């Protein structure tokens, strides 16, 4: 890196220029990473927080609660199976209004007040060992401030008003805050007096070997892992695909920009590289020098861009779905460094092909 470092010192202007472009890409990549994580959190954080390993849906429902209807018949198949705990869950989206006129969207999760979902979803504040669900709503913490304990929330489209009886860290589902209620209340809201024990899906806790496929075959259901069930969350697949596409394009653009810069830089230095080789520098020496230079520029630019991204990210309020996780930020930074290096491969190949004779004006 003898020559590379001194080139960086003297040709500071042009390296700052390309470094700024890479830093901007790193900044965008960090912000997109935060947005992607935030959107995912907003879409499935409630589902992710559920103390379950698998979810069982009606066959063909594609992991979507709104397309799945199960009943006591399916529940019986999954109950009493060794290494397996199963409890029904009802999920639907409602709009509710308080007496003061506050209107909130809710992902209403109806669970058995005596089941493991209610027990393990209880927060410290409302903790009596179980969520105190009977006849009321336990809301996601996110709604604290908009509504208070004791408020009556009228569920629009029904004639029912339910009291707010607590808050818990329930998270969100489909970008909507979760509200827990009892399964009976949920069934009454969704089906009126003709529920016939229906619910959306079965929440499972698998603690050992269980033949889930056989149970599915018997019950006519479809069991997926909790992570696989994320795909059924409204908008989840489209959002993650869009974010992945944008980040992918950003990486491709970055590779092209870095590749183009180092190709032009190599062309400009052709005679110098030829001279180095004429002085006895091997291809390995020349490539190592260029790669070292590239690594310094990439590392410094990505560090600066990511740092500014983290700074800006910390200024984003609760209004936008934005969440930065060390893992995903590191992943996007490393990906940027890798594609940057890959983008320079064309330039590196050119380096190895430069003829040392170019350093002499060879006469014909």
């Amino acid at each position, binding site marked *: 890196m003898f020559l590379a470092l001194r080139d960086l010192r003297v040709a500071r202007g042009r390296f700052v220029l390309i470094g700024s472009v890479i830093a901007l890409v790193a900044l965008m990549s960090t912000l997109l990473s935060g947005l992607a994580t935030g959107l995912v959190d907003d879409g499935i954080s409630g589902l992710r927080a559920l103390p379950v390993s698998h979810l069982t849906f009606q066959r063909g429902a594609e992991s979507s609660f709104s397309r799945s209807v199960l009943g006591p018949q399916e529940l019986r198949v999954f109950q009493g199976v060794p290494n397996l705990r199963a409890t029904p869950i009802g999920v639907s989206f409602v709009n509710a209004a308080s007496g003061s006129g506050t209107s909130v969207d809710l992902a209403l999760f109806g669970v058995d007040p005596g089941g493991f979902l209610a027990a393990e979803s209880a927060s410290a504040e409302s903790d009596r060992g179980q969520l105190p669900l009977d006849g009321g709503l336990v809301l996601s913490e996110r709604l604290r401030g908009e509504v208070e304990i004791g408020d009556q929330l009228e569920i629009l489209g029904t004639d029912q008003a339910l009291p707010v009886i607590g808050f818990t860290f329930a998270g969100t589902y489909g970008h909507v805050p979760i509200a827990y209620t009892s399964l009976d209340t949920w069934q009454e809201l969704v089906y009126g007096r003709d529920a016939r024990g229906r619910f959306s899906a079965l929440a499972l806790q698998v603690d050992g070997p269980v033949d889930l496929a056989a149970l599915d075959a018997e019950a006519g259901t479809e069991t997926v892992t909790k992570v696989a069930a994320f795909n059924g969350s409204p908008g989840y697949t489209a959002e993650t695909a869009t974010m992945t596409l944008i980040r992918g394009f950003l990486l491709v653009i970055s590779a092209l920009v870095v590749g183009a810069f180092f190709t032009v830089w190599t062309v400009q230095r052709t005679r110098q590289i030829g*001279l180095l080789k004429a002085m006895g520098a091997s291809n390995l020496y020349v490539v190592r020098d260029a790669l070292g230079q590239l690594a310094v520029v990439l590392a410094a630019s990505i560090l600066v861009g990511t740092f500014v991204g983290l700074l800006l990210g910390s200024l984003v309020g609760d209004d936008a779905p934005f969440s930065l996780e060390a893992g995903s930020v590191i992943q996007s930074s490393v990906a940027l460094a890798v594609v940057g290096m890959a983008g320079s491969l064309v330039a590196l190949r050119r380096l190895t092909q430069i003829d040392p004779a170019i350093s002499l004006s060879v006469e014909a």
Partner: protein
Amino acid sequence: MSARPLELKHVGVEVHDGDEILTILDGVDLALERGQLVVVTGRSGSGKSTLLSVAGLLRRPSRGEVLIAGEPTAALNPRQRTRVRRDHVAFVHQSPQLFPSLRAVEQLELVAHIHGRLDRAARSRARELLGELGLGDRLHHLPSQLSGGERQRVAIGRALMGQPSVVLADEPTAALDPERSRQIMEALAQETRARDVATLVVLHDPAQLDLADRRLELRDHRLHDVTAQPTP
């Protein structure tokens, strides 16, 4: 008896120009001794730079053999040729071709770095060499801060830094005024003798020919010894 620094035996170079084959060098024989400054003159386009590129292992001849420090090079692969060039050959170019980002002393240290021997002794040697070339007060100047003559003296220092057996100089005074040309050629001649290297210089300027131990003329694709003839 140690091997000659440079020997060319029956070297021929031909190039294809469409369907035609052009002969540039034909049956060139040359033997350089240590401490000897040999000047090659010739018309423009006579093949002088080709001769240097073949002698410096930058180009393979179509025929014949080039021996560097006694080692035949025809059968060497590119990596081996690079190694021989690094250990035994140095160039001084028509324009100094200094690296714009390196200070004068770093131009010499780069040679030691390529050799994998950039230690305290090498740094000290770089300073000494530049001092001997009258550039003791220009060690930390960039090429853009040096005059044409100073740049060429740095290039000579760089060539000598690797302690080569052979120095090949391609019209090193072409871009300089007569006074500075003389200084550069005197420096080359002095260093050739002081360091016991063999120096082959391609030269246009007849005013400097008296500094040569031997004079050769490249004519009709061959080298002719014209040492005995009076200088123009």
